[in-house]
């Protein structure tokens, strides 16, 4: 995978003039370097999440736990709480990172993440309705979010689909985005309305869900997420080539031999499913989908890469969860922990802004 992907990344780069001058082998070298560094960061953060924090586990103990030994106290906290939580965090980070990056690349718009084009809001509206109207909790909320995300995505796709013919299908991407905006606005209005029509306690529960939280992670969720990703990640890898074609525009993609309409359908379905399973597992963890793509692109000096976006997503979620669950309570007076989605934007956004500030010479590689 790595050699052709590297070559293709090199070709995609050619569309951004600032990077075109960078020799292809250097771009590939940088890509490997960034990948390795991010993978290392994911591992370190994963271990920090599992081993440190409010309850500290030593590495030998952790190894013994993994081998199946029972240590009173530690067994429960690590195996039933911290480990599944960290796994869910990693997986949703990967899923959101890829989903956002697919939309941003395919629609050639850094603002087009599932947050903005309606899918997350579909999940949110459905879940908040379940919480507020039916008093749902736990898995029921997840199921409702999943249904909402898929339902809205289907509606958006059907309404933006038009038989190609006199107008061609080159506006299909733009129409998808615009219809998505319309639905996002409606769903957001519904959420705001529901929030004002319920008692403050339920509103706060809903707000925690709306921000995304890993508190209810367990092995069932890990299993569902892992199974979904086992199907979706290979699909993503297969579609990545067409995605790089579509990035250059529909006509250029067709010229490169990409079958535009089926590829777009495949990519949309994959991205929507990724966003939907992740949202169902932990809520629409804010801004991970939006931030991962641009951060990855700037780390790679302009070239996009789904793998790097996925790793960036995982890093953001793991770092944010550790900060929210363990660091904040140390400084806040009442000792409450913050849900992960409250911290993701606060960690990811400054980093992206810093990259924007320091990338003086890379003119417009966004």
């Amino acid at each position, binding site marked *: 995978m790595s050699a*052709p992907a590297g*070559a293709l990344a*090199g*070709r995609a780069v050619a569309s951004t003039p600032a990077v075109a001058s960078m020799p*292809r082998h250097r771009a590939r070298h940088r890509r490997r370097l960034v990948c390795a560094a991010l993978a290392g960061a994911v591992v370190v953060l994963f271990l920090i999440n599992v081993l440190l924090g409010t309850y500290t586990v030593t590495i030998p103990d952790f190894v013994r736990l993994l081998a199946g030994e029972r240590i009173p106290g530690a067994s429960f906290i690590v195996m039933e709480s911290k480990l599944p939580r960290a796994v869910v965090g990693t997986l949703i980070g990967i899923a959101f990172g890829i989903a956002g990056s697919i939309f941003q690349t395919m629609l050639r*718009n850094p*603002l087009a993440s599932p947050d*903005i084009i309606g899918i997350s809001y579909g999940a949110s509206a459905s879940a908040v309705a379940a919480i507020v109207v039916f008093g749902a909790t736990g898995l029921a909320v997840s199921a409702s979010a999943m249904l909402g995300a898929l339902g809205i995505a289907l509606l958006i796709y059907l*309404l*933006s689909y*038009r038989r190609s013919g*006199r*107008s*061609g*299908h*080159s*506006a299909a991407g733009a*129409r998808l*985005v*615009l*219809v998505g*905006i*319309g*639905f996002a*606005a*409606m769903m957001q*209005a519904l959420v*705001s*309305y529901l*929030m*004002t029509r319920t008692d*403050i*306690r339920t*509103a*706060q529960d809903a*707000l*925690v869900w709306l*921000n995304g939280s890993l508190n209810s992670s367990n092995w069932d969720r890990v299993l569902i997420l892992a199974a979904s990703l086992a199907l979706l990640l290979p699909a993503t890898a297969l579609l990545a080539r067409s995605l790089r074609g579509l990035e250059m525009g529909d006509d250029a993609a*067709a*010229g490169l*031999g990409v079958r535009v309409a089926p590829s777009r359908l495949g990519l949309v379905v994959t991205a929507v499913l990724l966003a939907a399973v992740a949202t169902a597992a932990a809520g629409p963890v*804010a801004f991970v989908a939006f*931030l991962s793509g641009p951060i990855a692109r700037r780390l790679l000096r302009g070239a996009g890469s789904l793998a790097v976006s996925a790793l960036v997503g995982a890093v953001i979620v793991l770092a944010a969860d550790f900060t929210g669950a363990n660091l904040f309570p140390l400084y*806040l007076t*009442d000792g*409450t922990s*913050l849900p992960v989605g*409250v*911290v993701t*934007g*606060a960690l*990811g*956004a400054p980093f992206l802004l810093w990259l*924007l*500030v320091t990338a*003086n*010479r890379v*003119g*417009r590689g*966004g």
Partner: protein
Amino acid sequence: MGAEAHLPVRAVPRPPADGAPDTHYPIAARGDEAGLLAPSTLAASRERAGIGRMVSGLVLALGVLALVCLASLAFGARQIPFETLVQALTNFDPANGDHAVVHARIPRTVTGLLVGAALGVAGTAMQGVARNPLADPGILGVNAGAALAVVTGIYLFGVAELTGYIWFAFAGAALAAAVVYGIAAIGREGATPIKLALAGAALTAGLSSLMNGVLVSSQDTLDAFRFWQIGSVGGRGWDAIGAVLPFIAAGLLLTLFTGRLLNNFALGDDVARGLGQRVGLSRAFTALGVVVLCGAATALAGPIAFVGLVIPHLVRSFTGPDYRWILPYALLLAPVLLLGADIVGRLVALPGEIQAGIMTAVIGAPVFIWIVRRRKTAGL
């Protein structure tokens, strides 16, 4: 393994590009059926006919806006017949209950008018400046800045009344926009559209996170904030309107006449520069107008997101991409959407009401989706 191996050369027959104007519609059918006119005369006459059509469209829009304003005074929990409405406006009698109702609705209508106009024009200018159809006034960080400032005001200083929110919202909006523009302007090319959009969206993400952090940990703040957040034009007094009116007027003056600049932006920075435009300066100038408008609107009515995002798209679907026409149409039609939504919101949930911020999306979005489906979307 070279890239060439993955580059199959295959000629694919393509239908005409969608961006081409009316390819399915023969040019001769538009005004010059016989094709008798000389090309230059033809172009001139078509342009004149276009201007005539555009101007009469503006007059029509103005008429619709006037009707909506009257409707906003007449409808609500208590319906006022037309004659009484006219009497109340021309010959006010304080003892008459109906007259009092009409007068109570005037500030609300004025608020809707001002906020709608400000958001529509700001949204149009923002999409032009950022050259991005997803850009709305909030993309400069204005809404997030205002919201965080209001939350801070409630949380730290216990601000409870609307006039108190205004100054917090305005300060937050201005500060956030200044930061976004400052970050985007660093670097060789200055504030390019892509950097502007990314910096704005990123700052919005960061500020929203901080805001949510406060909201999650403080129930009282959430309780006050959730009602400000949905956006409403009701319950604003003359003092609040008076406070933001100068800003909206100044912002409209700044922004309404930037059509030519925005048209040049649409051609790309390099072409605009080639046409003699000082790109950085004019972008900063337009952005200033957007911030003033959007900050004032948000301060007065809370964050109403949909209007600024959608009105430019709606307008563009019948004016085409010329910003000199889009701006005045947005000025007139955005308040129609906001006031219309407010009126419906007053009527559907009697005896209560649903706030305009919610109704704009509920009413506007289906219309918007319908138009997006029916029309070819005019690009930026």
